[in-house]
């Protein structure tokens, strides 16, 4: 049985911003094909009228009051940045 849909690995890797080698593509496509094939059995479950479960418990309105608190000093905020200049993060030129 091979009802699992074909995984367009190029398209999905593009969405996920992952550069994959041809070897990785072939391997992942095969491995994930197996996994997806397994997952196909979810289609057998009758979910008519069943609410999706997004959270473990139905709790609403979890918020905080609008009170500003101190943040990170700029040096600490950028401490892990691979490249910085003028207290900003440097990235290759973005063409909008």
């Amino acid at each position, binding site marked *: 049985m091979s009802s699992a849909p074909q995984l367009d690995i190029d398209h999905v890797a593009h969405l996920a*911003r992952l550069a994959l080698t041809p070897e990785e593509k072939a391997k992942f496509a095969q491995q994930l094909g197996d996994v997806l094939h397994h997952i196909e059995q979810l289609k057998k479950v009758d979910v008519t009228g069943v609410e999706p479960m997004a959270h473990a418990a139905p709790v*609403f309105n979890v918020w*905080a009051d*609008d009170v500003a608190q101190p943040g990170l000093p700029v040096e600490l905020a950028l401490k892990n940045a691979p490249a910085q200049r003028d207290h900003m993060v440097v990235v290759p030129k973005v063409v909008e």
Partner: protein
Amino acid sequence: MNYEAVIGLEVHVQVKTRSKMFTRVAAGYGHEPNTLTDPVVLALPGTLPLMNKAALDAIIKAGLLLGCEIAPVCKWDRKNYFYPDSPKNYQISQYDQPICLCGTVEIELPGPARNVMGEHKTIPLTRIHLEEDVGKLNHGATDSLVDYNRAGTPLMEIVSEPAMHTAEEAYAYLTSLRATMIYGGISDCDMEKGQLRCDANISIRHVGETKLGVKVELKNLNSISFVRDGISHEIKRQLAVVERGGTLVQETRDYDGQTGTSQSLRSKEMAHDYRYFPDPDLMPVQVDEAWKQRLRAECPELPFDKQRRFLEQYQLPYTLTSVLVWDRTLADYFEEAAKLSGKPQAAGNWIANDLLRELGAAHHALADSKVRPAHVAALVQLVDSGAVLTNAAKEIFVEMFATGEQPDAIADRKGLKAAPTDVGELEQWCCDAIAANAKAVDEFKAGKESAINAFKGPVMKAAKGKANPKVIDETLRRLLAAQG
């Protein structure tokens, strides 16, 4: 063949809160780069969002002001896409359950003349949802610099139905929407600070057609006049393409307000696939009647409602109402002065003309004005009672604006009071004096300035010496001038 344009606007409005949408570091504009960040803003590993209650209050209030249905339950979704200004590479937004649905924005189109009210329309809204703003990219010659100060600022997206047909309508829509947001205290809507941003979806179709044509998204309409110019330009561009026999393509175009041109943005991305799904880190929001009631009580009267009331209740001319109603503090100021003086139109005129002129010249905000509504009311009463004449009152106003002194005191100090109090009587005495001395009239008209003094003696005598010489002088000059 006749074409019509169909326009829908997507307006982003930053909500005015102290802290950010999903973390409590301060929100603000104009700070040093990356000084308004914390681990959540930077999307450091392990961080989680926490809703800002005030932002929820603000959007519900916005929804109530615009007559939206407030959803009893709304939730948060992740909109997944990669961009350097987006720290998490997903934006927390509301996809299929926004907090506000429907609603309308009332607009006024330009009237046939400046002093005549234009046609009113209501533009239907699709939805309003809440999300978080992204950071800011500063483009250099060879690289770009990212500042995350703006990232995470609460942002409302207000989506209209494709229900406008001209650039004027879009302009009026944005003007009205902006005033409503400012009125509600929801945002300052300063477009220069990016607090209000607008994208337009524009298509054309044959008149009578109900299907939408090929849609062009116009971006970067960064000022209200750019919105009008940009849309007008785009409609013309689309008509020109069609008239040339060309085909319109669905695309995003960038409008350059400086040059008045637009450019297609090459789509670097395959068709967007945002992979929305409910954010597991945030609980849904439930809005009950009590919450809505509490916010409804805080909702101000909207500008057009106020204008209708001013027209009716105070019998103000349209032009005056359109000066007074668009600024909530000015309208409130007027109403207080109107109430205190009992002469709404006179109070309105002083405010719309003299006060705004002086404030403009001095670059002062209304809140900083030393002239308070009580001053205006007192001045109106002085004029109305005849205690001072109009010209004197103008002088008093300028003095009052500078010092904040009461008009009565200024009039006394500067001898600007018309006495005796009966202006009519004084005028009569002046007329009598002029009529009695034709020679002096001729001399005065011939240019002999001192001839005027010949009239003053008899007037002062008739007034038993209690008349204000300055007022007598003014009155005589006016009467003499009126004689031609």
